[in-house]
């Protein structure tokens, strides 16, 4: 993974010093609450219901074991001994004291981590495919491009006060595991007719109150033009984006109001002026790529026979492998997902002790690296199949071997009203209820891939509008109600979910999920996935059942 040089580290250290002084001035009354707000936000610090919340970036999801140990250490010393992973490859501390945040940032900086631009109306952490560089069929590894974008977007002086937040995701594969169509800019590495690799550029996707899928603004962008083209889009948006209404300020609304063709013309006009100045040279591309070269894989790894054998001998192991292990591009290696969706803790939460164990396991079994995923889980990307049983035993012992990837209980969930100042309704207790009600794994496996996404308010942090089953918390005269949608997807076949009907009271949410599953089982053809059934039959049969009683 990328290693900071003197330039990167100096800027990061200076940022910590700068923020320490900003915090000091705020506490001394030299900065008002309002003036301090954008400064703390650009360092990832929100003020929530109970306490501040610090969001720390995990650039494109990559972590070293050393970094994860530091995260565990920070959560013990400055928080309550656990952290929360988000859908955009960030992690959050839910209880830090505002006064100690500069110290936390200094600790993070010591392992090349930061909370820069993890919040606020600026360019956020660039996200990517969690299987980048290790999956089969990749056009090109997106990670070097993410790093190039990270550097370009970090402390960009012109784009720190945009109309609204701005999110970029990059993938190098036809399967979209990074929800790129729901980003302000989505970049797909593609091959053109001449066989050259470049980027397809999408713009104007986003979730929140007005979910919109991104549109193609450029079918093929040469790699050397990546930064000039991004800068052109950002400059057009910075000037044109609405600042009168924060709900209309995202670039998705700018694109909708002006039309993609007009936006493309404006971007192109800007781009031709800066294309040369910002051209990426081969030297820099190679410099960054050298941090992401393939490790020395053991060619004898595929000789192992224990992996298959142990699946025959141990049904629990076999079940976990089937659900949580995916193929690696190198024969003899596998990718192991660590579920953070156990019934014992809120989705995406992990304790300091578990983080330490995961770091040890990464060192022992997976080249010392850990990745965070869009679905709020973790993974070990380079495990020899012969080590898999030993790894599983250790995960099992620590409560980290929940075999529920991509099932109903692998729920994406926001912190909701339990923590968040914006939320209308709770989400974590409902996720727990769903997890408890549907605890029969064989039943879950039989249902196949189902993505429930549940947000506590319209801001949609858990991406409910693209859930196969989306659940949105709404406030009705002080009571928590939930609006269901069906048939959404954030992947390559992205679509927005359709509303099921009127909102449902909290005590009927889990029953409603059960009814939806009953209808699915009745209408499903063979092994048809839930999403396919919904797309085939529409929402009406589901609607009839759910609202049958009244």
């Amino acid at each position, binding site marked *: 993974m990328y290693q900071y040089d003197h330039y990167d580290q100096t800027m990061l250290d200076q940022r910590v010093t700068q923020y320490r002084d900003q915090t000091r001035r705020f506490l001394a009354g*030299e900065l008002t609450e309002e003036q301090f707000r954008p400064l703390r936000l650009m360092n990832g610090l929100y003020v929530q219901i109970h306490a501040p919340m610090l969001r720390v970036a995990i650039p494109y999801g990559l972590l070293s074991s050393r970094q994860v140990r530091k995260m565990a250490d920070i959560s013990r010393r400055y928080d309550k001994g656990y952290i929360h992973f988000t859908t955009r490859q960030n992690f959050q501390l839910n209880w830090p004291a505002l006064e100690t945040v500069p110290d936390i940032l200094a600790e993070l900086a010591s392992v090349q981590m930061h909370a820069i631009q993890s919040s606020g109306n600026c360019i956020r952490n660039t996200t990517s495919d969690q299987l980048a560089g290790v999956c089969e069929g990749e056009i090109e590894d997106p990670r070097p491009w993410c790093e190039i974008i990270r550097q370009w977007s970090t402390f960009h002086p012109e784009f720190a006060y945009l109309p609204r937040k701005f999110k970029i995701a990059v993938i190098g594969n036809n399967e979209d595991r990074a929800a790129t169509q729901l980003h302000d800019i989505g970049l797909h590495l593609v091959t053109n007719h001449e066989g050259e690799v470049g980027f397809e550029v999408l713009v104007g996707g986003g979730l929140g109150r007005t979910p919109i899928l991104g549109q193609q603004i450029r079918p093929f962008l040469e790699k050397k033009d990546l930064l000039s083209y991004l800068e052109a889009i950002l400059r057009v948006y910075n000037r044109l984006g609405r600042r009168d209404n924060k709900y209309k300020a995202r670039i998705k609304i700018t694109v909708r109001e002006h039309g993609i063709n007009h936006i493309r013309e404006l971007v192109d006009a800007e781009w031709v002026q800066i294309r040369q100045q910002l051209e990426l040279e081969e030297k820099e591309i190679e410099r960054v790529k050298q941090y992401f070269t393939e490790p020395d894989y053991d060619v004898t790894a595929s000789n192992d026979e224990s992996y298959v054998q142990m699946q025959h001998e141990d049904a629990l192991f076999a079940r976990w492998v089937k659900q949580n292990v995916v193929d690696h591009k190198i024969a003899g290696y596998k990718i192991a997902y660590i579920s953070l969706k156990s019934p014992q803790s809120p989705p995406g939460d992990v304790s300091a002790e578990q983080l330490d164990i995961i770091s040890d396991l990464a060192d022992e079994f997976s080249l010392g690296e850990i990745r965070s995923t869009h679905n709020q889980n973790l993974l070990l990307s380079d495990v020899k199949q012969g080590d898999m049983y030993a790894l599983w035993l250790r995960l099992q012992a620590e409560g980290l071997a929940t075999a529920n990837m991509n099932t109903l209980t692998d729920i994406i969930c926001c912190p909701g009203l339990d923590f968040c100042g914006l939320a209308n309704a709770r989400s974590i207790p409902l996720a727990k209820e769903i997890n408890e009600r549907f605890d029969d794994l064989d039943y879950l496996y039989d249902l196949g891939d189902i993505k429930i996404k549940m947000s506590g308010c319209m801001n949609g942090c858990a991406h409910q509008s693209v859930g196969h089953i989306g659940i949105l918390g709404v406030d009705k005269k002080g009571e928590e109600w939930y609006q269901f949608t069906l048939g959404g997807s954030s992947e390559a076949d992205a679509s927005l979910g359709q509303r099921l009907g009127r909102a449902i009271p909290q005590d009927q949410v889990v029953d409603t999920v059960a009814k939806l599953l009953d209808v699915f089982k009745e209408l499903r053809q063979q092994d048809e996935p839930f999403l396919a059934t919904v797309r085939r039959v529409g929402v009406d049969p589901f609607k009839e059942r759910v609202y049958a009683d009244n």
Partner: protein
Amino acid sequence: MQIIKDQEIVDDNWLHLEDEAELIAGDFTVSLARWQAEHDTLNKHEAGLGLRLSGDDPLEEIVPDLFRFSLIVLRFPAFTDGRCYSFARLLRDRYGFKGEIRAQGDILHDQLFYMTQCGINSFEMANPNRLASAMSAFEDFSESYQATVLKPEPLYRRRP
């Protein structure tokens, strides 16, 4: 009144003329509306002439007139309104404006570094008592990744 200019605290005697105010002999700035309406009269002004712009104004339309101004004032109605950062970049990088570019309005100490990188070289702070403490902001960072007005080559061209 004191302002920060070229990273020093200096006395400033520019007058920002209201649209109805009578013209004076010394240095003054006018709004874009006044410049457009009284173009001929203002062109005869012998002392310094400046133009005040905000993010709503059509920057590209005044480019042919830029040579006439020794000061462009960029208005920040709220510190969260970042449009004029792009204006400053364009004035310097694209339109070659060599005169003074001044930020005025709701400007925070912590914005001076980025503003300077975008080509703004003077600052009328809302709270003149804090000018001295704001001076440290220019040293917040010793490097930047991007091509900026101060360092036209991005870091990726300068890295050894």
